[in-house]
């Protein structure tokens, strides 16, 4: 079953006078249970691709299907609904809400999804347990280490049972030990059934996936199956 299907996606930015084509026609299919790494040098367009897959950005042309639904004709509210229910995004810089505790941060996507307080609290507690931070529920991001913050961010990404987890350099802002822990957590989630796509420029991290998509100059250079 195809969770995400990218069809001939192009993305151009207007940089002052001239146009910069970041993605020059990408085709990619992500199946349920997949674990994919997107690798490439900086400026290759790998993050832009992930952001478009996560509906955080719109492609200039091409089609994106999430769960077999075409998103290219969707309005802002419908896209927000896709982000809310189908996608869990994990950022390099965590992007937790600094004023909220761990549990409140995890509950926030469920607030947007209209869940009741009881449902949210139950789910958030389970997710904290899952990422191993049950005892950190009432801590604010500033009271957590980088690795712990990323774990809260991962738990937040899972809040509405998304079809897919998209992680943009999830270990890029962590020391190697915490990075290892985060990658192991993501792979554990993948084994439990979550579909995972992550962007990394670090081959060691990328290797944990089952497939590595090499992107260069806005095009897929090759797809490598990890042994």
């Amino acid at each position, binding site marked *: 079953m195809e969770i995400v299907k990218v069809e001939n996606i192009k993305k151009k930015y207007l940089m002052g006078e001239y146009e910069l084509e970041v993605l020059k026609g990408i085709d990619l299919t992500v199946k349920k249970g997949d674990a994919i790494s997107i690798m490439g040098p900086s400026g290759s367009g790998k993050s832009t691709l992930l952001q478009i897959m996560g509906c955080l950005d719109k492609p200039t042309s091409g089609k994106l299907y999430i769960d077999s639904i075409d998103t290219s004709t969707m309005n802002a*509210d419908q896209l927000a609904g896709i*982000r809310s229910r189908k996608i869990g*995004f994990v950022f390099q810089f965590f*992007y937790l*809400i600094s004023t909220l505790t761990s549990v*409140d941060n995890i509950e*926030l996507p469920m*607030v947007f999804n209209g869940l009741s307080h009881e449902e949210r609290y139950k789910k958030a507690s389970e997710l904290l347990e899952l990422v191993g931070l049950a005892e950190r529920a009432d801590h604010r991001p500033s009271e957590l280490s980088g690795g712990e913050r990323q774990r809260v961010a991962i738990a937040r990404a899972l809040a509405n049972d998304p079809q897919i987890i998209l992680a943009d350099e999830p270990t890029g802002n962590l020391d190697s030990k915490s990075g290892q822990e985060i990658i192991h957590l993501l792979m554990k989630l993948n084994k439990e059934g979550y579909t995972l796509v992550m962007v990394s420029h670090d081959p060691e991290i990328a290797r944990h996936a089952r497939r590595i998509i090499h992107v260069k100059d806005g095009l897929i250079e090759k797809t490598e199956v990890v042994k």
Partner: protein
Amino acid sequence: MQHLDLLKYSITNLRSRKLRSYLTILGIVIGIAAIVTLISVAQGVNDFIMDQLGMLGGNWISIMPGSMKQRMSLGMMSAVSGKLTTNDGAALKSIPGVEDVMYELQIMRIPIQYKNETATVTGGGWNAVVFEFTSLLEVGEGRPYKDNERHVVVIGDTVANDIFKKKIEVNQIIKVGDTNFRVVGILKKSGGLASTTSGMIAMPLEDARELLGQQTTSNQVDEMAVMVSEGYDPEKVGEQIRLKLRQLHHVDEDNEDFTVMTPESISSIVGTITGTLELFLSGIAGIALLVGGIGIANTMFMSVMERTKEIGVLKAIGATDNIVLEMFLLEASIIGLVGGVLGLVLAGIATLVLNYFGVPTNISPELAIFGLFFSVIVGALAGFFPARRASQLMPVEALRYE
């Protein structure tokens, strides 16, 4: 349900960003306090003047020597041509609707002596009917003098209690000029315009004439006032008085040597003055609204702008544009409300201080409600536009914002 959660989020946000919330609120507090205080001064001054005019009494006509034109060009205190006499007054009594006539002789400065101490006060002579004419001369202790009495005075409250080391009591003798006078009454202590009478003395007309000596002729008066009988229109009686005086003074409409001021003409002159004052004060209030409003808008605008990235995060994890907008509108409204309430409190304190220094103020319920609404609405609007702008960005664009 969701709205309540969003409200909780907003409050949590405000509470955990204390310093910034306080500073934003402070900006609004100062804006609202300035607006409310200035408008309350405008209202207070207006009320004060209206109140004082009410005290002058409404049912009498004032007659002064010299034409209005002369008085305007020469100034109130200057000498004018034309004289008013008690003979004029006696003649006016024949006009239907004229109940009584009051005469006044002004004395600018009179030396008075009490138990070997001397002081200078202002005063004047009036026939006894003056005490019925105006509440400015309300006798507290003792009694008013009568028309058949001589060498008696009614003294102001300050004269009685403050000027001399020993208080002057009713029935004691004071020396006015070179003559002994018996104090028959002491005026009530009062504030506002009436306080102008607390430092003066009032004596019968003939006594004042005696004190003025050569400065005045036998029956001349400085001013007259006619009390209008009930049931008569003061304007019509005023017109009759004007006709009668023209006849007596052998003048016609164009060279009148007197001025007749009816309640209506007084209130129209006063209306011109308070109108100008009101215009001036509303100008100040307008500037306060503008400056306060811009201040509020600016603080709110900046506080939303710098959170564009947070808006990006909220959208990335599934918030719709409207949810984002609602969150920021709630925050802006709460800030506006709290700032408005505190601004009103500050304005209340400021008006108390102003009152202490004698500036009249009036914070009406309408003004308080207006201040609150203004604060909430300007705050919400100023939060609305940047929040809407940011909420309509694609999440990546908002996240990229520094």
